[in-house]
């Protein structure tokens, strides 16, 4: 595909385009789910910036709050409450704007590919009707629409001839691509992709990732890519945020995270991934214990119980986010006392 109607509108190609202009800024966000036994703190003081044109990976174990963060940004949180914090998107504060205005943003401005979203396709409607409906509800149906649809289908390797088919006639991988096409047709600025490939097989997943990578570049999308698979992160993202128990423990450049991870949790996580392409078979390492209960969390380091470096201080105080400096100049933050000038000496013996 040489010329693209979709991308012509926003084409700013340069290598250092990242990290200049923030598209989405989250500040000190706290989100809780009130339950019988207290409050589940799914997002605990998260601050995060998404820059225009970047792919930011959000990685963490099951239940650490990744989807909750996605839902919060789209204001689609079911049963959860934003306790405090700010989310600004293009200088609009999403926390305070009324639902009516939010509806206008959802779709054409920010959009989400949900976890297992293949199931969201209406089984009674042909694929073509899904596209028409999506465009019409957002008043985007015009003369060019038809061409747009065909171009996208072509891009995502769905044969034109299958537009008249029903969703159940497609395989899981194709359904997922249809969902992605439906998201892209509205030309959103920011896409939150919540585990878009987890339900798929390795081969289908690998192909889809390749297509996604090309599309992100071509359409100059900004993506928050949620996954638990660090292998995918290595493949597709520019920066990564490591989430644990509702907090972001480390955030930085993908290359740096994989080669020079600062937080003990990130390191342990990277060591636990088996690599098939290793020359030698080696024993895998793992992290003993399990993630903490998110109900009424104590004010200590959330990883202290499982951390092999932990000292008394980790069990008595909550670490603050600390800036680290790496050569490439990309902002790198970590929440760990080891890197805190005031407490670093406590860890010297290790």
């Amino acid at each position, binding site marked *: 595909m040489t010329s693209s109607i979709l991308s012509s509108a926003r084409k700013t190609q340069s290598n250092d385009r990242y990290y200049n202009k923030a598209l989405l800024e989250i500040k000190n966000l706290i989100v809780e789910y009130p339950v019988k036994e207290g409050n589940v703190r799914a997002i605990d003081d998260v601050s995060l910036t998404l820059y225009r044109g970047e792919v930011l990976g959000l990685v963490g174990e099951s239940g650490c709050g990744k989807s909750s963060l996605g839902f919060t940004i789209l204001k689609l949180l079911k049963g959860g409450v934003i306790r405090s914090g700010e989310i600004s998107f293009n200088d609009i504060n999403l926390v305070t704007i009324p639902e009516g205005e939010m509806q206008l943003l959802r779709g054409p401005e920010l959009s989400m590919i949900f976890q297992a979203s293949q199931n969201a396709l209406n089984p009674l409607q042909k694929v073509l009707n899904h596209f028409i409906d999506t465009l019409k509800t957002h008043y985007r149906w015009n003369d060019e629409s038809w061409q747009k649809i065909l171009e996208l289908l072509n891009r995502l390797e769905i044969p034109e001839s299958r537009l008249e088919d029903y969703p159940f006639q497609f395989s899981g*991988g194709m359904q997922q691509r249809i969902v992605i096409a439906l998201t892209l047709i509205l030309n959103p600025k920011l896409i939150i992709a919540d585990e878009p490939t987890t339900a798929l097989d390795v081969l289908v997943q690998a*192909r889809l990732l390749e297509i996604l990578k090309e599309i992100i570049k071509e359409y100059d999308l900004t993506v928050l890519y949620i996954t638990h*698979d660090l292998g995918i992160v290595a493949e597709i993202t520019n920066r990564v945020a490591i989430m644990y128990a509702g907090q972001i423990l480390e955030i930085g450049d993908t290359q740096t995270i994989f080669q020079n991870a600062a937080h003990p949790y990130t390191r342990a996580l990277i060591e636990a991934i088996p*690599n*098939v*392409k290793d020359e030698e078979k080696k024993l895998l390492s793992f992290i003993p214990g399990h993630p903490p209960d998110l109900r009424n969390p104590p004010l200590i380091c959330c990883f202290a119980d499982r951390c092999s470096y932990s000292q008394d201080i980790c069990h008595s105080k909550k670490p603050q986010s600390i800036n680290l400096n790496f050569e490439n100049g990309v902002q790198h933050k970590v929440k760990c006392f080891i890197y805190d000038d005031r407490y670093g000496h406590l860890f010297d013996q290790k």
Partner: protein
Amino acid sequence: MIKLEPELNIQSGTPLLEIINLKKYFPVEGGIIQRILPTQKDYVHAIDDISFTINRGEIFCLVGESGCGKTTTANILVGLEEPTAGSFKWKDNLISYQDLKPKIKDIKSQIVFQNPYSALSPRMRLGDSVLHSLIIHNRVQDKITLKRLKNAFKSEIILFISALFSIFLFIISFMLDASSGFLIAITAALLFTLASGIYVNYSLIQKKKIADPRVLDLFTEVGLSPALQYYFKYPHEVSGGERQRANIARAIILNPELLIADEPTSMLDVSLRAGILDSLKSLQETHNISILFITHDLATARHFGDRISVMYVGKVAEMGSIDSIFKNPLHPYTKALIEAIPTPIPGDKAYNLPKGEVPDAVHPPPGCRYHPRCTYAKFPYCETEEPELRELFPNHYVACHFPLNSI
């Protein structure tokens, strides 16, 4: 440690279970026309003529994409599904499936399921769940277990009587008009219930009396320690990883010779996964169990298994030792699978990914089942002739007309 009766003459490389030409077709529920005309019946070719051997004391991995027939194979081996055709050799004796079934019942093989969340009864404490599998299999004739069960029963009785007694006290207290007597009776009732509850549920002495020592040992072995604490927990009180450990304990306590593990770690997080595999491996070594390890994750298979069989749409595409398959994959499909796994190295790229998707198992493609997706050699008879599984290197089998070493 659990008492075992190990057979001392076990050598690696001696076959435990041979599966020969196994087939499983599921009939497709067709539309009305097909029901009226029974001649046109369609079948899902879930397993279409596969053979492999599981040796004693080895970890045999079965890998492949979703729907290629892995779970169906496991289900047949534990007696949950009848095969359409196929024969079996158990320790070198040719037996039919009907004869294999009692062996299965005789707990020669046990299964650990894909989903740790649904496999344990939510109403049973972890320890009881494990003990229960002994009871189901009529393995509780020994005196120790009976005594433990009696103790458990006794504590239930204590609780029951104390509950009755406090209800009785309550009734009395309502019948008493004098407020002071009323209060005393209520307090006594409450204290009594509380005390007996604490005694039964929390007293270490009582717990030690009830808990089965074999289960406790096993819990320590699978990494649930302190075992006494985990023994009395309910499934909802522990994490997914711990549940899966209890599941493993439940299978191991029956002392099986073959353990079938159907994706035991795919529902778990990476940080827990390696721990479970570690426990499984050490159990396999100490008890000399053979494991049929089913997974779609080649990376896990590589680090965990001894031999591997790669399945594609109901057929074996390639089979051999882990080392030779990963160093020298001969089937284009195996190579693609290995290439496709995202590696934890930024900038690493996969090559030669096949296009298209897994074909429908109702109408599998003629010839080589992989030919529509194969990015390598495409010769006319890839499309017409089915490749045989042949031994190209010692103990390395491949079903491909043009294996990669010939290109």
